[in-house]
């Protein structure tokens, strides 16, 4: 490992270091996509890698997302480990067919004989005042597809370890980068063992309610937990990290202790990831639950224009509100569209 202990870096910097270390350690790894070479990516995640590793390892491809993923599949079939960048969430959609029909399925179609260790990095989500098509939370399109792993780091430490593990993983991984967290600083410690690619972690311990979140919404959730403390609720906060597979064991263990759960994400609520978590918790924790599992998510609208996004994204108040509603009182009228 080239990274040193306890270095403080941004989440984007941690990803950059993970790519650099992976490129240095394994010559089968290569990085390509739009503007990832000379420019170093529009978010600078690949900054300096082309000059360090040469343009046969890190390079700009023609501007075509299906082409990027489709050729990555061919490269992986031939023994390479491509890490490709989709410039923004909604611009990965042209590659959807290659991802769902081939990347996810080739192992299965060939009874395990074709392995595709491909990582697709997708900066996703809002909160940065981006214009149209730059703010989608596209996670469930991928989590619904068997054969894909879907992970999303919320801290620089996780950004480093999850990306290293994703690159080492024999399965294709959709690596969702919460773009509003890119500049968040934190420490990475490559020497410390990671909890694992498909494990959730408890970010804050508490006994009254379990708040489940991931990616861009995690920080808001942690803030809400601090605020809830002032109101007398001890909230536990779980960072899912891996959306597929879903670490039910960690989440259910917490909910069986607290008896109450809220899932928080910025994607639209309808058929959102929270629906799956709520369903699994009601199937496995029904007798422990003091109240229905609630979801706090974005509205069921196309991602709004930048000057309105603050009304769409879940904030601390909305999460606190949900915690209040969990103190289940059957006489309280349900709000339209909630619970």
């Amino acid at each position, binding site marked *: 490992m080239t990274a040193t202990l306890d270095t403080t870096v941004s989440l984007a910097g941690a990803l950059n270091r993970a790519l650099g270390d992976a490129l240095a350690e394994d010559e089968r790894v290569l990085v390509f996509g739009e503007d990832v070479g000379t420019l170093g990516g529009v978010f600078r995640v690949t900054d300096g890698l082309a000059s360090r590793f040469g343009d046969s390892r890190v390079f700009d491809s023609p501007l075509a997302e*299906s*082409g990027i993923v489709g050729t990555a599949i*061919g490269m992986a079939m*031939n023994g*390479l480990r491509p890490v490709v960048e989709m410039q923004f969430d909604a611009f990965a959609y042209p590659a959807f*067919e290659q991802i769902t029909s081939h990347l996810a399925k080739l192992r299965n*179609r060939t009874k395990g*004989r074709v392995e595709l260790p491909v990582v697709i990095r997708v900066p996703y989500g809002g909160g940065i005042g981006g214009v149209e098509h730059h703010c989608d939370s596209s996670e469930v399109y991928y989590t619904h597809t068997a054969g894909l792993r879907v992970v999303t780091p919320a801290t620089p430490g996780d950004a480093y370890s999850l990306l290293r593990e994703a690159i080492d*993983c024999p399965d294709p991984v959709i690596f969702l980068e919460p773009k509003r967290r890119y500049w968040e600083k934190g420490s990475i410690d490559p020497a410390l063992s990671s909890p694992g690619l498909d494990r959730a972690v408890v970010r804050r311990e508490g006994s009254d309610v379990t708040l489940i979140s991931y990616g861009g919404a995690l920080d808001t959730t942690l803030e809400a937990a601090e605020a809830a403390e002032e109101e007398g609720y001890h909230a536990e906060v779980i960072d899912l990290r891996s959306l597929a597979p879903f670490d*039910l064991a960690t989440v259910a263990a917490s909910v069986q202790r607290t008896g109450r759960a809220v899932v928080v994400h910025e994607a639209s609520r309808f058929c959102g990831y929270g629906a799956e978590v709520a369903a699994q918790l009601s199937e496995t924790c029904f007798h422990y639950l003091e109240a229905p599992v609630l979801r706090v998510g974005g509205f069921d609208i196309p991602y709004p224009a930048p000057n309105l996004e603050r009304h769409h994204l879940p904030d601390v108040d909305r999460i606190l509100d949900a915690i209040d509603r969990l103190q289940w009182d059957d006489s309280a009228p349900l709000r339209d569209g909630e619970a």
Partner: protein
Amino acid sequence: MTTTERTAASYFLPSDEPLGLVFPDGAAADAPALPMPADDVLLRLYRGMVSGRRFDTQATALTKQGRLAVYPSARGQEACEIGAILALRPQDWLFPTYRDSMAVVARGVDPVEVLTLLRGDWHCGYDPYGANVAPQCTPLATNTLHAVGFAHAARAKGEDTVSLALLGDGATSEGDTHEALNFAAVWKAPVVFLVQNNGYAISVPLSKQTAAPSLAYKGVGYGMPSMLVDGNDAAVVHAAVEQAVARAAAGEGPTLIEAVTYRIESHTNADDATRYRERAEVEEWLERDPIARLKRYLTDHGLLTEQVQQEIDARAEDEASALRERMNVDTVLDPAELFEHVYAEPTAALRDQASELAAELEERA
């Protein structure tokens, strides 16, 4: 002429008419634009086409007996399927479509393993690394990008491997074809794109597919030499693919070849081609049969004796009866395997679902 001496037009542009080496009456072209394959190669092409057609008619018969769920016939396209495959070297890779079972078999994959897909037992029955054949691709044109990526990786690793991507005329309208042609040309990837223009994409004729003078023009805008050849002439398909493979292997990048041919049968056994084409048109193409044509040439040149013909026919018949026999066996499938090949290791949820199914099966038994 070296590459630099050629003008863009003369280098990249396909001919106005399809190039041919052996004409429908068995006569050879007198000023060939491509070299005529050696006599022994012509004989191998002939053998391959006879076997290929017998495989194809056998597979069609298996659909009638309910042994195959579906079969897209390549009858009439033998010159493309066999001509291209015999031009590949052992290390090269084939990226076929659903139509190309004949080519996959000619490449050396066990025909029963090839038909596993169409029998409905599993989505790909063969090991792609066995004969260097990617799984047969159903979504149109997506295989072209896999071929480019594979070839690019081969070059990056210093390996002398060329990818052959097969596609149909309809598939040239898909975005992936254009991305693949562009990536291959920009990366100078060692790829050969062979468009089998069989006249129809299910029911849609070529005239509704493109306004280009020929599909070979599709390569020109991306910066690759493009050829238009007679797809019912195995000699010219073989010569064109062989030349394109050599160019690719020499680091000169991709080539696009359009082979003009015809699909004699319906799109699949489930399709009714009489709804969209006239019998007279089919008759006309039957006159240009790729097997009969090469047979005339070989006979006229004293390369095919009655005895060799009998031996070729007998071998094709033996292969077909062996296939029939092996396909007339009910297969036993293991439902537990459904969960085994989704990820490298089954997830906790998949292990649960495997137990769920096992319990269901036990209950029903």
